[in-house]
């Protein structure tokens, strides 16, 4: 179920009431397991069985890794766990993508192969819970974590409903210790959790879905060439939409966990005020970037190798990071672009970091805006369903089309402009702080007024339970819809004559 749905409101109210009403800690943990599986099964009940079976496998494999004598044996069990998890992910998420590419490759050498169409229904959140689960065996192998004796606790760590389907990617090592002692109901923590959920819903329902998504969809779905203003406006709208959408989900998850007494780490830290791309990845989807850093980049040698190899490591990590987001070459290009950005930044650092002018305020501001612009250009590949659309968008952004159309209304342009300006101003204003510090500095009446305004806006917006964008990282690019006037067009007389009417 979605956080922005009536079902979730009722579900959450029941779970929270029962959870704090029950006395035994074991009973409360059982309740959370049941609630998490109901939450997950509410999408497609059979997939709950798949989630349970992969969790059990990792639980068992974790024990085997811990028991195994010698690094060789430990590695064998770890390979089994990695293969099991990634093959599940590969089959459900990348099955059709791999088949299509195999078909394309064969066609290049003159072999006509018609692969069977695999009608694979993708389990929601598989990309996230695979990583939750995988972190457990990886950490046991690394010696960071001892295997838990309780299958129920591990099941809860993987399936804990606030973070189950769209993150943050909570490592078992961060969550399992929290199951050791029952949390006490702390009033301030509970209400702060509710406040974070309200903010998250406001970001999702009001800012992402209402003020930005419609314009971004119209621009990316438009089949013709667009003027530069509309192209850029569409990309900025998407940049804002994806931030508010995903950061909103993360805030809801963190807030919901807090109301139940659990602590999840930040997943976003004002990313559009990043100065440079390594800074961006320390601020954007932090749980994924740290996961890739610890389990992929560092094992590859990280930056403790020759510069060329370190650069290659970066590109490999970002390539896989891109592919993780979706089974399409557009996501791969998005990842590779970010990989290239990181490599270029390294070169710049070597060349200019020691220069005094490099750390002056104007240069930092220019570098910040250049980072934002480059991130936006990469978003084109992330949002576009294919390279045709991506190249048309980039052409529009850089004024390449001779006869261009303007499709956004003045209201939409004003909305995108004002929301983007406010977003960037807030990120720059808080870039060296935490969100909690910013709230702490506000007078109480301002917190009350902002909270009331956000809650009212959520109610009056009447969101229609649009899925969060990160739910779509299930195999394909975001769904597209053509805009009516494009296809159902034709002057009255000409339409008649053309249609034979």
């Amino acid at each position, binding site marked *: 179920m979605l956080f922005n749905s009536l079902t979730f409101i009722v579900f959450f109210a029941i779970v929270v009431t029962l959870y704090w009403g029950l006395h035994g800690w074991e009973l409360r943990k059982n309740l959370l397991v049941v609630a998490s599986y109901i939450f997950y099964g509410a999408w497609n009940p059979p997939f709950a069985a798949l989630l349970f079976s992969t969790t059990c496998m990792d639980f068992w494999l974790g024990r085997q890794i811990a028991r195994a004598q010698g690094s060789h044996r430990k590695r064998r069990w770890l390979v089994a766990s990695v293969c099991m998890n990634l093959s599940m992910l590969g089959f459900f998420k990348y099955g059709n993508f791999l088949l299509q590419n195999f078909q394309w490759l064969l066609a290049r050498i003159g072999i006509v192969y018609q692969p069977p169409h695999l009608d694979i229904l993708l389990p929601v959140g598989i990309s996230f819970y695979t990583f939750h689960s995988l972190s457990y065996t990886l950490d*046991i192998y690394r010696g960071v974590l001892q295997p838990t004796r309780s299958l129920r606790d591990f099941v809860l760590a993987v399936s804990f409903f606030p973070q189950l389907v769209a993150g943050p990617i909570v490592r078992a090592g961060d969550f399992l210790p929290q199951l050791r002692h029952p949390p006490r109901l702390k009033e301030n923590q509970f209400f702060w959790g509710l406040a974070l959920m309200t903010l998250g819903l406001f970001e999702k329902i009001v800012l992402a879905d209402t003020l930005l998504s419609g314009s971004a969809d119209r621009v990316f779905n438009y089949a013709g060439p667009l003027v530069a203003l509309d192209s850029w406006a569409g990309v900025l709208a998407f940049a804002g939409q994806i931030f508010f959408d995903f950061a909103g989900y993360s805030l809801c998850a963190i807030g919901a966990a807090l109301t139940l007494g659990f602590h999840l780490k930040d997943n976003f830290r004002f990313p559009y005020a990043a100065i440079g791309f390594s800074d961006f990845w320390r601020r954007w989807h932090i749980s994924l970037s740290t996961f890739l850093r610890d389990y992929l980049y560092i094992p590859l040698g990280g930056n403790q190798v020759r510069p060329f190899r370190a650069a290659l490591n970066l590109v490999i990590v970002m390539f896989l990071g891109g592919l993780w987001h979706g089974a399409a070459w557009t996501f791969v290009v998005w990842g590779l672009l970010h990989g290239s950005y990181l490599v270029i930044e390294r070169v710049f650092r070597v060349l200019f970091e020691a220069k005094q002018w490099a750390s002056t305020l104007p240069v930092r501001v220019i570098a910040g805006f250049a980072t934002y612009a480059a991130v936006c250009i990469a978003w084109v590949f992330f949002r576009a369903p294919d390279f045709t659309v991506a190249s048309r968008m980039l052409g529009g952004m850089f004024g390449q089309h001779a*006869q261009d159309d303007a499709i956004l209304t003045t209201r939409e342009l004003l909305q995108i402009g004002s929301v983007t300006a406010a977003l960037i101003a807030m990120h720059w204003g808080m870039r060296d702080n935490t969100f909690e510090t910013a709230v702490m500095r506000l007078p*109480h009446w301002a917190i009350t007024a902002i909270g009331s305004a956000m809650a009212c806006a959520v109610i009056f917006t009447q969101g229609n339970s649009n899925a969060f964008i990160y739910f779509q990282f299930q195999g394909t690019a975001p769904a597209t819809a*053509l805009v009516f006037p494009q296809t*159902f067009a034709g002057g009255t007389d000409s339409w008649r004559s*053309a249609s034979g009417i």
Partner: protein
Amino acid sequence: MFFRKPSREEQIHGGPPLEFERPIPPAPWRGIAVVVTIVVIAATTAWELYCRSLGYAPTLNDDEDLWTQRRRIVAPESIVIIGDSRAWFDVDLDEFQKGLGKRPIQLAMAGSTVWPALADLADDKNFHGTIICSVVPFLFFAPPGSPPMERAEKGVKRFHNQTPAQRVSEYLAMPLEEHVAFLKPDDLSLEALLNQLPIPNRPGALVPPRFPPYFQTEDRERRARMWEKCAEPGSELAKKIQQIWLPLFTPPPPPTYVPKDVFFAQMNEGIQKRFADVTAAIEKIRSRGGKVVFVRFPNSGGLKELEDRITPREKTWDPLLKMTGAPGIYYSDFPELSGFNCPEWSHLSAGDSVEFSKRLVPHLRAALKM
């Protein structure tokens, strides 16, 4: 730290003890929560009262979940109404039940094309009932990717893919919508209100079409009734809606990025394909013993003139009946059906819809050989 031996207590889960705890900003959070709750309740109540003072009444929203709920109860021998908003407004289920002996299921959808629902019923191997299909040619031939097609597809897709969570949300939403007037996403949501701001657009900007405001209520059987304020003779609301239909029913110019001849060839091909697809779908239904009847519901005034001009009967309705071999009832062919006036040019008032349905039933019985 990572490689130290865990203590005995830690060994139950292993790993280092919890080192991370989220900071909680110090503030009187309970007091803030109480004040926020009071403000939200007061603001919501004020907004509800204001909306009611404007004439909005609590009613169900016609979304894909409500459609799915009705689609779910279609039995093999059901009588099903599909098509556009004219069938949705103009059919009285009670009169149809009296006249046809069975309560029909309302699956017509405002602003939609009939094809997805027809194809879905044709593909439903259990279905061998009766289909009453409304025809508004401008919508009937709407191409893939257009809003009428998307709206209809949304309903059919939701019927096939509805998750348990969506189903529960639907049952939770219904009593709310039946009691709260401001729950109208098309009219009173933040997005709809922003859309109504009178901000001029750039010259030549391709802006999306405007849709009519709230002017109907709907019950759990998806029976739509025109709001009385709209049905009043010479009402301002009706006049406003009339002026919205005209641009909405006028095909916009071809897109700039497709050569005209290519575009019109594609359009023509699409229309011929729709004729062929509909014929094949009806054949499937008939082969299982099912029946299909087309109905052209009344229209009036400037909209009737426009429709007659851009989608004349001899190029749409007549070939449709000829190709499919299905019976059809064109309202203007029968004096008892043609004397009705649509207040906003496109739909009958709630009262007239009952009378029209009563008069339509004998024609349906004859067409369906009942």
